[in-house]
């Protein structure tokens, strides 16, 4: 048996880590909730697992998403993750090949060059040796970059990098020490044993000229083992917990496990998967003028530390820009929302919110403008005009009274209350017999689509209007106006509707693209999700977003959300219009008369009295 | 502009009492009643000024208009020369004429007033006589009053009042020809009809409440109900 006392710190650290991880993960898996076990069992032997494995490779080792943010940053992450991973795997192969047996002491590959002092003669062993040196160099280049990033983060496209806690700094110091120490230990050993390769051997020879290498080697191996063991002990308490957790998270996610509405189980997997890379910081529009150190990376850190986070949880636009770029793919806005959840929850007076009275609905299409629509009557009026011209029979659900879809309460973390409020509308929709529900408000849309779980088709008006155009129900004049489209958060990032509005707009004029569009689209500042931000601060965001969209002096800024329209109008030089308004302006009304004569075909808005 | 509003406008007290209120609230600030009741002369003026019949009807059927003590403090303060107190009088009159007064607890007390004071005027020529302050209905007067009440003739003699006797002096008996003159005045001016109206509306209400209202006086269930009932909701 190959043994030396210096392996003890490493073994102890490793053992400790395994116990802690088993205990922690066991607890979280236990909290996944009912049905999770069945779900995992059912998915285990399906394609989902393969897909998850691929994702683990792409994200945990190669860090594809980080590459997309900045290639140098991506290389830095990849060199550390993939490099270290390969160092372990290849090291194992090397040791196995050398000893001729697969099973050997688990620490043996790691301290291989300490135990195997004879210079390697065979080509294969020399190849392994060179490969290991190469990997070490690969990792060390990453460590050097990381060091450089500490001092100059802008070099990797990050205006701000994470301000770390002292615990994280300790773990970081240990991590950075591991590889230089390994280099030194191996070089010193190579200095007297000659078992090094292209990196370690010359360095060893060099050191041998000035240092008593034989005497120094063992203490440095001790140091290497201590640092390695120390890092593993520190790992569960530092941001490096993300290394093992992220792998599990990817599998669980692919198997269809979702976080519940409290910080437990799956939420912990997400929470501990945050590597505190800080990429989210720059994406946050509240940064840096309005508030510092409140971005997701800090929020998750406080949450993980079990600190009071109510204030932090509320100080967020919930725009989802950070989530879009998060390399780990954590459902960040959801974590923020569920942290807003109040203990005393269900105290809303549900009886105060009467349902939409049920008349005999004979229409197949329901139109729901949304409560914000009453502040942007241009959109409502345009939709009425378009629907009338199209000849579609429809019912305007909230023409006279505004009803709340419940999403504002949900975003504020008052889930039970949101449920109660939405119940009434849901009943009216379900029992209406209609097959299509069209809404002008992306917030309502998200709510109807994801939370209501109704049988009928739920469409945002941009989807519906495109259908009407494609189906020849309405025809529009094309123009040559230069348009810029602003993606509303709730429609784009949250609901994935990007193409339909653009398709409509290309029919109406020429669409100019801006850099921050699609998933990267800016928040208009109107954010329903941020409850504590002051109007002055909102206006800062509104102004900068409006200025950004106006950069190429378009003729008109198009959007598809009443709240975005309202927010951008004040500061925009060019007019801000909803897609429905643009269509209504360019509507060809030639068929209109035919419809008008057929009175029965006309939409009839039912008076809704309560 | 509704029916009730137009009827109010026929009342001189309304025309004089409410010209153009600008909702400054000084009447409410000075009002002794507003200090204790949920009573707000400003709001009443505003309601009437809006000429909305629905809310005027609500007002006429409520306890609110009966909280006013008609002290007319409001008249002295109003910067626009309005008199909410006069407006209240007009509202009360309309409430009596429409029969809405029976809808509220304080309004129903019109019946007791009609029976006690109304009867007293017509039969004796006096609004108020000591005999009307029955200790059973007025416990607040205490035991001394009860003794006085039981020994009224002797006490009156002792203090030198010409109590219910012919000739001059306080509380003397009113001559029959004078009494019939008073009755005639009531007949001609519509006072009798007005009393009759209150009687009729009250009797309807008494029937509705399954209480007997009697033909005269206060010795009946409806009278004692309206006289003594206090829901405790007046604040």
């Amino acid at each position, binding site marked *: 048996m190959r043994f030396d006392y210096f392996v003890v710190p490493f073994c102890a650290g490793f053992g400790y880590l395994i116990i802690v991880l088993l205990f922690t993960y066991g607890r979280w898996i236990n909290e996944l909730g009912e049905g999770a076990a069945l779900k995992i069992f059912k998915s285990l032997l399906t394609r989902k697992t393969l897909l998850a494995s691929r994702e683990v490779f792409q994200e945990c080792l190669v860090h594809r998403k980080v590459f997309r943010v900045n290639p140098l940053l991506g290389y830095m992450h990849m060199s550390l993750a993939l490099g270290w991973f390969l160092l372990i795997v290849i090291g194992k192969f090397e040791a196995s090949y050398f000893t001729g047996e697969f099973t050997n002491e688990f620490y043996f590959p790691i301290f291989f060059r300490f135990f195997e002092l004879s210079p390697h003669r065979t080509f294969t062993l020399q190849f392994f040796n060179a490969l290991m040196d190469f990997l070490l160099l690969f990792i060390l280049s990453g460590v050097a970059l990381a060091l450089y990033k500490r001092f100059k983060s802008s070099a990797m496209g990050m205006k701000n990098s994470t301000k770390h806690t002292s615990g994280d700094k300790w773990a970081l110091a240990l991590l950075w020490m591991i590889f230089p120490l390994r280099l030194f230990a191996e070089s010193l050993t190579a200095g007297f044993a000659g078992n090094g390769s292209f990196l370690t051997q010359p360095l060893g020879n060099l050191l041998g000229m000035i240092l008593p290498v034989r005497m120094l080697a063992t203490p440095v191996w001790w140091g290497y083992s201590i640092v390695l063991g120390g890092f593993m002990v520190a790992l569960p308490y530092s941001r490096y917990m993300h290394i093992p957790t992220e792998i599990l998270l990817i599998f669980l996610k692919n198997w269809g496990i979702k976080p519940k509405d409290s910080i437990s189980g799956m939420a912990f997997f997400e929470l501990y998967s945050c590597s505190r890379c800080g990429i989210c910081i720059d994406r946050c529009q509240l940064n840096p003028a309005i508030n510092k150190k409140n971005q997701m990376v800090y929020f998750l850190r406080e949450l993980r530390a079990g600190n009071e986070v*109510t204030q932090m949880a509320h100080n967020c636009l919930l725009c989802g820009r950070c989530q879009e770029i998060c390399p780990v793919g954590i459902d960040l806005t959801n974590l923020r929302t569920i942290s807003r959840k109040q203990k*005393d929850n269900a105290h*809303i007076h549900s009886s105060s919110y009467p349902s939409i009275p049920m008349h005999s609905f004979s229409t197949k299409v329901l139109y729901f403008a949304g*409560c914000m629509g009453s502040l942007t009557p241009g959109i409502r009026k345009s939709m009425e005009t378009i629907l009338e011209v199209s000849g579609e029979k429809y019912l305007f659900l909230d023409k006279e009274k505004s009803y*709340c879809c419940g999403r504002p309460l949900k975003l*504020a973390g008052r889930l039970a209350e949101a449920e109660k409020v939405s119940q009434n509308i849901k009943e009216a929709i379900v029992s209406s017999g209609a097959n299509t529900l069209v809404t002008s408000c992306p917030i309502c849309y998200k709510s109807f689509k994801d939370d209501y779980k109704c049988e009928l088709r739920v469409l945002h008006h941009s989807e519906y209007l495109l259908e009407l155009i494609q189906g020849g129900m309405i025809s529009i004049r094309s123009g040559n106006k230069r348009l810029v489209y602003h993606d509303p958060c709730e429609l784009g990032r949250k609901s994935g509707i990007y193409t339909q509005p653009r398709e409509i707009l290309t029919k109406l004029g020429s669409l100019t693209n801006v850099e921050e569009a699609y998933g990267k689209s800016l928040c208009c500042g109107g954010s329903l999700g941020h*409850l*504590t931000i002051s109007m002055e601060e909102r206006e800062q965001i509104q102004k900068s977003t409006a200025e950004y969209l106006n950069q190429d002096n378009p003729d008109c800024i198009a959007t598809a959300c009443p709240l975005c329209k309202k927010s951008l109008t004040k500061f925009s030089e060019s007019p801000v219009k909803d897609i429905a308004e643009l269509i209504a302006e360019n509507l060809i009304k030639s068929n209109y008369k035919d419809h008008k004569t057929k009175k029965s075909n006309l939409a009839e808005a039912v008076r809704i009295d*309560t | 502009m509704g029916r009730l509003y137009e009827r109010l406008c026929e009342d001189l007290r309304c025309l004089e009492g409410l010209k153009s209120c600008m909702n400054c609230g000084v009447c409410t600030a000075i009002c002794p009643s507003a200090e204790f*009741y949920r009573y707000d002369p400003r709001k009443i003026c505003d309601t009437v000024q809006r000429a909305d019949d629905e809310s005027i009807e609500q007002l006429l059927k409520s306890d609110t208009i009966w909280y006013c003590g008609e002290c007319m403090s409001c008249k002295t303060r109003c910067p626009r020369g309005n008199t909410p107190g006069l407006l209240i009088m007009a509202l009360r009159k309309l409430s009596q004429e429409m029969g809405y007064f029976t809808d509220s607890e304080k309004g129903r007390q019109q019946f007791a007033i009609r029976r006690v004071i109304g009867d007293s005027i017509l039969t004796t020529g006096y609004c108020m006589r000591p005999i009307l302050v029955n200790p059973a209905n007025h416990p607040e007067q205490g035991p001394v009053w009860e003794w006085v009440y039981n020994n009224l003739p002797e006490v009156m003699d002792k203090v030198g009042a010409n109590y219910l006797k012919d000739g001059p002096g306080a509380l003397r008996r009113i001559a029959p020809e004078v009494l019939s003159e008073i009755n005639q005045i009531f007949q001609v001016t519509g006072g009798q009809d007005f009393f009759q109206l209150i009687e009729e509306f009250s009797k309807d209400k008494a029937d509705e409440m399954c209480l007997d209202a009697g033909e005269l006086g206060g010795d009946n269930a409806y009278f004692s109900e309206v006289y003594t009932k206090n829901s405790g909701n007046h604040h």
Partner: protein
Amino acid sequence: MSEWGFTVIQTNQSDMDQMDRGLIAKIGNAEPSIFWCIGCGSCSATCTAAQFNNFSPRRIIQAIRSGQVKDIMGEVNKCLLCGKCQLVCPRHVNTRNILLNVKQIMGQDAI
């Protein structure tokens, strides 16, 4: 002797010297925009919840400012947090945050 329902009527007049300044001090600290309200009522007029019940953000702000804390018990829970009040306010008052603060400060009392 008849049964008499005498009650001693409490004064309806508010004594501003005795007003409860605790809540306004705390809320004013957390959300100073409460002092900017001019009582125009546009919030209550646009309010989605107020269409169906007697909820009135303006009245709540007024009650807090004049220390009539009792009047707003249970009121804040009627808010649907739709944020339209803030969109129409001519003085940029963050009404939603005021209501959230009331809930937080008053805790169980606010129910």
